[in-house]
């Protein structure tokens, strides 16, 4: 066997903090060979990013690093910054998470690629460097690289910028590429493009890749070997197929059980992992996962388990005293995690047509004027954010709107929440039209029936108010007597699974998942009929996300709520929604029952969207055919005469001249089985 490109042994990283020494990484060892991809998975705070920064030598000065990092036989730890600079960007390069901030806005992308080239090779002439920059841009799939090389970062979309970042990372033919959550900030169709591109980059340069991610689907898609990290230690390490097929450590099992699958229609509840990760300060000599583990034994609490080979395979190692008993996520005949019960709704037996509608939206339209001029603002154009959207939600039903960023889904939702009167349409909430609202009192009355839960659990709670005041605010607003507020808040806290005794604390004392529960409690305070959920779980770690999704499921049944759910994560949508609408550039392109849409996608965009999502199962994932869309969402300021999807449509490429005419000239209307499954494509 050849020597690995990167060999890490017993890497430890600790930081000083007010609460004591934080042991962020506690003994990580792995090898990455040439052309191999190592996936490091873990939740926030598991030490995966710190590991990659330690390899790059990019940690703060106050971090204490121990162990050994060998890159091509040379020790990297203990080198000065100047020495490391010769290796960084040359032997090892890095792709960061946020493409919006990892490029300098004041230099053209060409300048930035040329800088990366010439800094490591002083003999390279300027002309040769520019030629190489153009070639790199072509390689990463930027159209018209000759012209685009002079463009500035702000002239590129997020996906395109990430391509430029990858071009810079590839510039000097690195032997190791470290990618830290390279697709987390991007839409799924773009994510598919970028993952393919990283594979291309790996093929071109023969580099080893270290892929850091929280997404099991991405791991299944790209990795050869996987390390699962928890509380600063690897707790399971195996080749990708082995890990998914024969998971041994309860935490890894939990991570896999907690994610909804886009390719499975059955609605069984997700399995959350209770509790939250331990603080990495003064950890006792015990299994750090013991407090959250469903199969904990006394042996778990006496010593921290070592990472040892299990099942007779040298390359499958797990840190669990019961690893030999666990086979493929099951202990004996029972699953490791007891499956939680979610009650079935009585409403589900009532046919949809007979249930009362809680929200009816008819021809909702929103345009923003484009203004120009510094003194007198002149209208120079319009942005059509939402174009004639119609749908309804019945009692006890969840309707999801999915789409990429910029598709207008959040605008739709805010229009509903703003009670925006429509020129040529209507919004009716529980039978009341927003056009009929006269005065603030009537509006406040209607607000009781519709409440919202926001995406960001940190930003949506006023940091200056105690949790009690946060949850009590809607109650006080509707004029509930002060004596009734206290008991009601306790009841709500209980309902969302929080201890009412904790309601005198500030939101900062709660974890992300708990804060989102507080947000849900607040939304439920006035007994609304409809709850609008704006990406309610996308900011949460997967193990926590499952708990919140189960809570939403349960509340819907217990309180007979309707949800309007906006998300970009189709797996979550498939799990939670009854009906789904796919939005592209301000209009619905497909709308119908969730299983109908997911199992039999009609519109080419829906097909592409569904195929772009990586499935957390390497065998399935390898067999799937990804439809990779070219390009980005067109600008909403452009006037498009025909179908908005033409510029990216894979179906359009296969059509003959006559069929193409319809696509380019006529705006497709939603057609199909009305009320069950409709799509907006001329040819489906």
């Amino acid at each position, binding site marked *: 066997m050849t020597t690995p490109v990167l060999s890490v042994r017993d890497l430890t990283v600790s930081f000083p903090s007010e609460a004591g020494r934080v042991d962020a990484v506690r003994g990580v060892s792995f090898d990455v060979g040439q052309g191999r991809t190592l996936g490091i998975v873990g939740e*926030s705070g598991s030490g995966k990013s710190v590991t990659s920064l330690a390899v790059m030598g990019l*940690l703060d000065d106050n971090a204490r690093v121990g162990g050994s990092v060998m890159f091509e036989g040379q020790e990297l730890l203990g080198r000065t910054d100047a020495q490391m600079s010769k290796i960084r960007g040359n032997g090892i390069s890095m792709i960061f998470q946020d493409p919006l901030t990892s490029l300098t806005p004041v230099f053209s992308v060409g300048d930035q690629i040329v800088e990366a080239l010439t800094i490591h090779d002083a003999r390279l002439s300027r002309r040769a460097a520019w030629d190489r920059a153009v070639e790199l841009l072509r390689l990463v799939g930027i159209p018209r690289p000759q012209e685009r090389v002079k463009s500035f970062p702000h002239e590129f979309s997020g996906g395109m910028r990430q391509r430029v970042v990858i071009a810079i990372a590839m510039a000097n033919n690195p032997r190791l590429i470290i990618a830290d959550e390279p697709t987390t900030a991007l839409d799924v169709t773009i994510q598919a493009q970028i993952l393919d591109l990283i594979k291309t980059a790996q093929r071109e340069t023969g580099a080893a890749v270290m892929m850091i991610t929280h997404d099991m689907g991405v791991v299944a898609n790209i990795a050869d070997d996987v390390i699962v990290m928890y509380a600063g230690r690897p707790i399971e390490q195996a080749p990708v197929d082995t890990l998914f097929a024969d998971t041994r450590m309860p935490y890894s099992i939990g991570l896999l059980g907690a994610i909804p699958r886009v390719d499975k229609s059955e609605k069984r509840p997700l399995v959350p992992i209770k509790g939250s990760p331990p603080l990495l300060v003064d950890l006792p000599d015990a299994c750090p996962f013991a407090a959250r583990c469903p199969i904990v034994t006394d042996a778990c609490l006496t010593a921290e388990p070592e990472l040892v080979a299990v099942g007779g395979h040298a390359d499958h190692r797990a840190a669990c005293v019961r690893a030999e008993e666990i086979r493929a996520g099951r202990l004996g005949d029972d699953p490791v995690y007891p499956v939680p019960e979610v009650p079935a709704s009585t409403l589900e037996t009532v046919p949809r047509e007979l249930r009362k509608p809680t929200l009816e939206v008819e021809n909702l339209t929103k345009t923003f004027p484009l203004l120009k001029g510094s003194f007198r603002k002149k209208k120079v154009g319009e942005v059509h954010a939402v174009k004639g959207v119609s749908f309804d939600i019945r009692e006890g039903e969840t309707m999801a709107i999915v789409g990429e960023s910029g598709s207008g889904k959040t605008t739709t939702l805010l229009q509903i929440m703003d009670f925006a009167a429509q020129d040529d349409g209507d919004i009716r909430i529980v039978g009341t039209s927003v056009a009929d609202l006269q005065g603030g009192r009537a509006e406040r009355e209607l607000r009781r029936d519709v409440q919202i839960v926001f995406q960001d659990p940190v930003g949506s709670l006023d940091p200056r*108010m105690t949790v*009690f005041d946060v949850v009590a*605010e809607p109650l006080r607003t509707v004029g509930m007597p002060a004596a009734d507020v206290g008991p009601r808040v306790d009841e709500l806290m209980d309902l969302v699974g929080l201890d009412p005794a904790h309601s005198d604390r*500030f939101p*900062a004392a709660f974890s992300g998942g708990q804060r989102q529960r507080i947000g849900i409690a607040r939304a439920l305070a006035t007994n609304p009929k409809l709850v609008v959920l704006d990406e309610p779980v996308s900011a949460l770690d997967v193990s926590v996300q499952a708990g919140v999704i189960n809570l939403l499921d349960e509340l819907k049944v217990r309180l007979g709520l309707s949800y309007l759910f906006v998300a970009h994560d189709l797996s979550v949508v498939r799990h939670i929604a009854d009906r789904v609408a796919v939005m592209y550039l301000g209009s619905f392109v497909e709308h119908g029952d969730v299983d109908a849409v997911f199992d039999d996608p009609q519109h080419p965009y829906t097909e592409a969207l569904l195929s772009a999502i990586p499935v957390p199962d390497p065998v399935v994932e390898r067999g799937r055919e990804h439809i990779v869309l070219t390009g980005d969402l067109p600008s909403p300021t452009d006037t498009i005469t025909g179908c908005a999807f033409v510029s990216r449509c894979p179906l359009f490429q296969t059509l003959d001249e006559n069929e193409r005419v319809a696509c380019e000239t006529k705006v497709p209307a939603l057609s199909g089985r009305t009320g069950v499954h409709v799509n907006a494509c001329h040819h489906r």
Partner: protein
Amino acid sequence: MATDSSMVDPLAEGEPAPPVAAPGDRRRLSKWRLYSRRFARNRPAVAGVVIFVLLVAFALLGPLFARYDHVELDFLALSDPPSPEHWFGTNNAGNDLYAMVVVGLQRSLLIAVVVATGTTILSAVIGTAAAYFGGRVERVSLFVIHFLMVAPTFLLLAMMSNDSGGDWRVIALVLILVSWFFQARTIWTLSLSLREREFVHAARYMGVPGMRIVLRHLIPNIGSLLVINFTLGVVGAVMAETGLSFLGFGVKLPDVSLGSLIGIGSSSISSAPWMFYFPAAALTLLTVSMALVADGLRDALDPTSAAGGRA
């Protein structure tokens, strides 16, 4: 997050131990009790409060011990240094400096507190309301603010206070009028980003009326800034009043303030230094104590400060 585990606030992640209360008498810890508990943990801030309280007590109770009235002239003791008869000495006309410092401190405290309170409230309400409501409210407020910023306010100040004949109430009012708008503009800029925060949207979608959102969500979230503004307002008001009095536009004899006393004292610092040092010491104690208090308040009110979460 790239460096997540290093950046994790140890208090935000886990379950901090709850303040254990007996199950029977679970009383909700009110916000204010929490704030005061955090404030009390900060030693210098408590020292600041003590100094400030002593100064206020001195201003209020001082006259009880005074042997002379501040306008009374003792012709037997002209420019006398501190003595058992005149504790702080006298000036060249025979006024008792102790009595003058007590009255001057009263006057200065009153002006400072009134001006600082006035400017803070005015700037906070106008600044946040302009940002939250936008549209016409914003345009009008900003027009007034920008107009006042370019107007020669000092001239205005001098003219108006001169006309008042040295009445401290008019001076206080004029000081408020010429100092609120700088703060209002800072607050407006800050509130613009606050307006887009999700908890403000959440409140709006709950149907909370606009003015209540301003008072309940926007203003408390710029609380630490307001506290700093208030302290600087106290210090600034004392300074402005000193300047005015020095130039003869401010408080006029027979009424005295710390400002006018320092103004008079500074001219005779070599021959009768006590005339400068006593009022100057009172002024310094006043401003230093306010600064310490402000620091403590900011730490106590700020949920992200080091003291946060632990209580």
